[in-house]
């Protein structure tokens, strides 16, 4: 066990897998010598050589396309899209190709590919370094979508993603790379080392895909969240005095429906939190699922607390970011309904 930040945990996952399996390699923009703009691939080129960890041309379509070809060959590539905001040029290769190849070839060809991308705001990154495009992946049959919230989960989920025989989009909440930021800007961000989920085994382990985590048990209301918003939701619960249960979904697709249903049917109230724009965000799917499965148990309308339907505005990002007070307001509405 070691105390790791999320970056260190992700780096460790790659290291463990490259050590275990010569078919695992990683590439992307600035991923090689430099170790990635967020340092997730640091030391890997030095340790495993330039052929296993290298820089790519600035062409996300090519990064995804080449990785698909490698996966078809039999390798297990892990690619980095420098920011999720830059995944759009790769979108066709991911949606029309990676996601469909097993199906259209009737299981003849498969694409064991992992696509890492830092997502989310709160770092003054402006419109093109802050986006949360998860719903653009959850709509795509054939892709899995994973978002960790802690170092422990980040490593265990990334290893599961790499070992998965289908393409996995692995979104990394960059705002909590270095500490479990909880949206309370008036307090100093505590380092990961003070958080129990930063205790990370140095070797191989997995956190299974498709399983949510109950971060906090509660009786009165369920909060569904993932990534950065898990920490914000927990802070909101602390500040609200409401006995809410917080679910960290961890995998968005396939989502852990049993955990969701069990919790919401128990509490009868549900608040969904995400940072992505509201309309057609993943929260809409969660809302639809919850009302489909828990209709008769619901005592209040399901609330969505989300990013607004605007680009992420640079200087106004703290007005855009779903902070604890916004979540608490929704919780109160749900409790009072």
């Amino acid at each position, binding site marked *: 066990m070691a105390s790791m930040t999320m970056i260190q945990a992700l780096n460790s996952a790659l290291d463990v897998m490259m050590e275990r399996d010569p078919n695992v*390699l990683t590439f992307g923009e600035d991923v090689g010598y430099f170790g990635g703009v967020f340092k997730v691939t640091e030391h890997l080129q030095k340790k495993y050589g330039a*052929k296993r960890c290298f820089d*790519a*041309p600035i*062409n996300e*379509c*090519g990064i*995804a*396309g*080449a*990785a*698909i*070809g*490698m996966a*078809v*060959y*039999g*390798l297990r590539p892990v690619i980095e899209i420098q920011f999720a905001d830059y995944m759009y*040029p790769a979108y*066709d*290769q991911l949606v*029309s*190709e990676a996601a*469909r*190849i*097993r*199906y*259209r*070839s*009737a*299981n*003849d*060809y*498969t694409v064991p590919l992992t696509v890492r991308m830092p997502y989310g705001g709160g770092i003054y990154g402006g419109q093109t370094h802050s986006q949360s495009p998860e719903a653009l992946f959850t709509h795509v*049959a*054939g892709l*899995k979508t994973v978002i960790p919230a802690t170092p422990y989960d980040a490593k265990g989920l990334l290893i599961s993603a790499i070992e998965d*025989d*289908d393409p996995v989009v692995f979104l990394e909440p960059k705002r909590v790379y270095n500490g479990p930021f909880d949206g309370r800007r008036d307090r100093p961000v505590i380092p990961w080392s003070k958080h129990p989920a930063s205790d990370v085994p140095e070797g191989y382990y997995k956190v299974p895909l*498709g399983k949510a985590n109950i971060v906090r048990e509660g009786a009165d209301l369920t909060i569904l969240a993932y990534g950065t918003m898990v920490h914000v939701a927990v802070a909101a619960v602390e500040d609200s005095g409401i006995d809410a249960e917080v679910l960290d979904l961890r995998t968005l*697709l*396939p*989502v852990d*429906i049993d955990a969701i249903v069990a919790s919401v049917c128990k509490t009868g109230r549900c608040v969904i939190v995400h940072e992505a724009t509201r309309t057609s965000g993943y929260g809409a799917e969660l809302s639809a699922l919850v009302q489909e499965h828990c209709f008769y148990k619901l005592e209040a309308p399901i609330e969505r607390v989300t990013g607004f339907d605007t680009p992420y505005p640079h200087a106004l990002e703290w007005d855009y970011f779903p902070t604890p007070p916004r979540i608490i307001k929704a919780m109160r509405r749900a409790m009072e309904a």
Partner: protein
Amino acid sequence: MSRRSNALDLHIPAPRARPGDAPDFSGWSFPEPGETPRPEIDAPAVELREFAYGLIRVLDMDGAAIGPWAPRLAPEALRRGLKYMLLLRAFDERMHRAQRQGKTSFYMQSHGEEAISIAQTMALDPSDMCFPSYRQQGILIARDYPLVDMMNQIYSNKHDPMKGRQLPVMYSSKKDGFFSISGNLATQVPQAVGWAMASAYAGDVRIASTWLGEGSTAEGDFHAAMTFASVYRAPVIVNVVNNQWAISSFQGIAGGENTTFAARGVGYGVPPLRVDGNDFLAVYAVTQWAAERARANLGPTLIEHFTYRAGPHSTSDDPARYRPTDEARAWPLGDPIERLKQHLMVLGEWREDQHRAAQEEALETVRATGREAEKVGVLGVEGAHEATSMFDDVYKDVPWHLRRQREDLGA
């Protein structure tokens, strides 16, 4: 609007001839067969630029094979190539007709382009990996993939290897090194480069080859592929099949008015070979050159196959609506089957009666196979595929939401 004297003006390329016009290939000049030198496979790319603007030809119009590019191919191999081409053409004709008869939804012929897929497959190693577009069914034929399975797929019947999920012509066969064809143009090209990089990564000996139409070179995927291939010196052959037409738009709309498609390779420092795509021997020879180069760790080659799409784009269009009907006949570089036949005859290795017999044999093979496949079923037969099979292979394992949807459908 009165125009200023120095006003800018927008140029929209137009083909020389449209329906009603006479076909017009005048003013095109090609190097003579045998005229183009054959460089060493390790020649630096900078020395190969001019190949982008010429045309490598081996067969002259009388059937003689001339010059340094003439491959040393035994008559037996030539006859095999000819027979494959005859089979491919017969197959295409029948399947095109089958669509007209409502037995399938869609078909695409490779009429006029047979030399490319057949000669290239023969020049490659059987274990080399192919990432084709939808017009290289000849690869499967030359790799002796069961014709009946192609038909089963075209008919989407219950033996369809793609389980009714794919468009008729979008084959896949891993054991034959034939990658699952995509409906999205050019996506296979960076994948081929990635596969080739993986082969190099693994210290393998297999190379990759990929095909796309001249129209498809406009897609960004082509640029991605060429960039990656150039940067990592991937052992891959990128084949641009310039058959003059996309659907209704001529090659000028794809960027062929100001230069050749082979010249795209120049832009990336990738050796560009331009070849008469209707010349079986020339196609074979350039493929062999490019394959040897790739195997020697000297990286990618771009080949432009200069040819003509003699048939419609697909069963969904009528070329008489956008080009002169007799353009194919006017094509200055002839028909690939006729030209190889003539060559074999000049060699004294083939006779008219043999040719007629071979043609008949191809037809009969296709006919018999057609009967076999039709017995299994044609498109639209209920129950050919379990409806619930639609939920398989989306993922390796069926997740809960698809299980539930499968139950809903079953109910």
